[in-house]
C-alpha cells in the first residue's frame, strides 16, 4: 500500500522444536499499512511464525526486524518490540480477575507509565470504538466470546502498536459472533493499521487482505493477492488445501 516502509522483515526464520522443524527458513516482508493473511493446514507453522514476531516463540535461526529493530542478538530490545506489536489470541486470554476496562488500561499504566486517569479515559474510548462502551465494568466471565475478543483487540490497541498480529481470532467463536469481530478488524484495516492475520476467513481475506500467504510444512509455498491465490493458485499444494476449506 501507501509507501514502502517495511514494518515486519522476516529473514530466514527457523524454528526447530526438536521433533519437528516448525519453520524451515521463512522470508517475508510486510509493508506499513499492509494486511497480510496467512493460511495453511494445521502444523504448517503459521501460528509459530506469527508468535515468533514478538518472541513468544524464540527462533532457532534467522532474524526478524520490526520497524527496523532486530528481534534477535545483542541489540535486541524485546520489550520495545512487544510494545510496538499488538497480539490477539485465539482464546482471547483476557485477564479474568480484571474488568474489561482494567484489562485495557493495565498495560498502558504499568508498561508505558501513563496516569490512571488518562489510561482509563483512553480505555473508555477504545471500548466505544469496538462497540462495548457500556461494558467497561463487566468481567470477562460476563461477556460473550465475540465481546471478549473485541475487548482483547481494544487491549492490544491501547498500547498504540505499529503492527497488529491476529492468531486465529475467530476460531474459538460461535458462528454468529464471527462477524462482530471481523467488523472491528475491517475498521482497523480502513484506518491503515499494519496487520498480519492467521485465519481462514476467506470473506475477510477478499475484503481486506493485500496479500495471502500459503504455508505448508514450515515453508511459504505461495504468496499473492487474494483473488490470485483463491482462484488461480500456481502450486498444486495450495489448490489442494483450498479445495478442503472453501
Amino acid at each position, binding site marked *: 500500500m501507501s509507501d514502502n516502509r517495511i514494518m515486519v522483515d522476516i529473514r530466514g526464520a527457523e524454528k526447530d522444536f526438536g521433533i519437528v522443524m516448525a519453520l524451515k527458513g521463512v522470508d517475508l516482508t510486510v509493508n506499513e499499512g499492509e494486511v497480510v493473511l496467512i493460511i495453511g493446514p494445521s502444523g504448517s507453522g503459521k501460528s509459530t511464525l506469527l508468535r515468533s514476531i514478538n518472541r513468544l516463540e524464540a527462533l532457532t535461526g534467522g532474524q526478524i526486524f520490526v520497524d527496523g529493530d532486530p528481534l534477535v542478538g545483542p541489540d535486541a530490545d524485546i520489550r520495545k518490540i512487544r510494545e510496538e506489536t499488538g497480539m490477539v489470541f485465539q482464546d482471547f*486470554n*483476557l485477564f*479474568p480477575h480484571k474488568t474489561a476496562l482494567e484489562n485495557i488500561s493495565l498495560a498502558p499504566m504499568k508498561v508505558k507509565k501513563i496516569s490512571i486517569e488518562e489510561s482509563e479515559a483512553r480505555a473508555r474510548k477504545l471500548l466505544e470504538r469496538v462497540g462495548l462502551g457500556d461494558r467497561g465494568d463487566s*468481567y470477562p466471565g460476563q461477556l460473550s466470546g465475540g465481546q471478549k475478543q473485541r475487548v482483547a483487540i481494544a487491549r492490544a490497541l491501547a498500547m498504540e502498536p505499529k503492527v497488529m498480529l491476529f492468531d486465529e481470532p475467530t476460531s474459538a467463536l460461535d458462528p454468529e459472533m464471527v462477524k462482530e469481530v471481523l467488523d472491528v478488524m475491517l475498521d482497523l484495516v480502513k484506518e491503515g493499521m499494519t496487520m498480519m492475520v492467521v485465519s481462514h476467513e476467506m470473506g475477510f481475506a477478499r475484503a481486506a487482505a493485500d496479500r495471502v500467504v500459503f504455508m505448508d510444512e514450515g515453508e511459504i509455498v505461495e504468496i499473492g493477492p487474494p483473488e490470485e491465490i483463491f482462484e488461480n493458485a500456481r502450486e498444486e499444494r495450495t489448490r489442494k488445501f483450498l479445495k478442503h476449506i472453501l
Partner: protein
Amino acid sequence: MASLEQQRGPRIEVTDGALLPTRGDGYIIDSWRLTIAFAILALITLIFIAKDPYDQIFRVVIKGAPLTFGVTAGAILGSIVLGLFTGLGQIARGRALNLVAGVYVELIRGIPLLVQLIFIYFALGKFFRLDGFPAAVIALSICYGAYMGEIFRAGIQAIPRGQMEAALALGMTRRQAMRLIILPQTMKIILPAIGNEFIAMLKDSSLVSVIALRDILRRGREHVSRTFLSLETYAVVALVYLVFTLVLSKLVAMMEDRMNKNER
C-alpha cells in the same frame, strides 16, 4: 456463578459447564453448625452449670490463647512468604533455584514438625540462644512453608499459559506479569488449600508446648500436674481448640465466598 438459593436439598453451583455441589447444602442444620453448637454448649455447660472444677480450668487454660494465636499468626505470615518464594523458585527458569527450592521441600517434608521444633530450639540453642516464641514461629514457618511452596507451585502452574503470554505480549516484564496477572489468580485457586494449612497450623501450634511456651496445651498440662484433674482439664483443652479451629475454618470459607463474588 449462579446458585439456586432458598431451595432445600443439595445446592448446585453452575460453573463453566460443570455441576458441583457446594459446601453449604441449603439446610439450616449443617455439619459445621452442629459441631460448633455442640462444642459451645458443652463448654457452657461445664463452665457455668457444672462449674467446679471446670470454671477454674477454663480460666487457666484460656490464658494460653494469646500465645497460641500469636504463634499461629506469625507462622501463617512466615509460611506464606516462604511458600511463595519456594513455589516461585521451583518454577523459575534457573536450574540452581529449582534445586534449592526442591531440596528445601524434600528435606522439610521428610522430618516431623516435632523433631524440627526440638532441633531448632534445643540443638541450635547450643550456638545461639533463641527465645521460645521466635523459635516456635520459625520452626512452624519453615515446616509449613515447604507445604505451601507445593501449593503455590501447583496453583501457579494451573493458570493457563495464555495469561503469561498475553501479559508478555503487552510489553510487561516477567516480574510484572507474575505480580499483576498470575499471582492474583493463583491466590484465588489456592485459598481453600492454604486455608486448610492455616487450620493445621493452629492445631500444630500445640506442639510448641514442648519448648516451654505457655500456650493453651501447656497451661493445661501445668494445671494437671498441680491438680491431677487430667480428664477434666484435657476435655476443656480439646473443646477450646475445637471452637477456635471451627471459627477459623468458617473465616476461610467466608474469604473464599468473598473472592468468588468478585468477577463473573
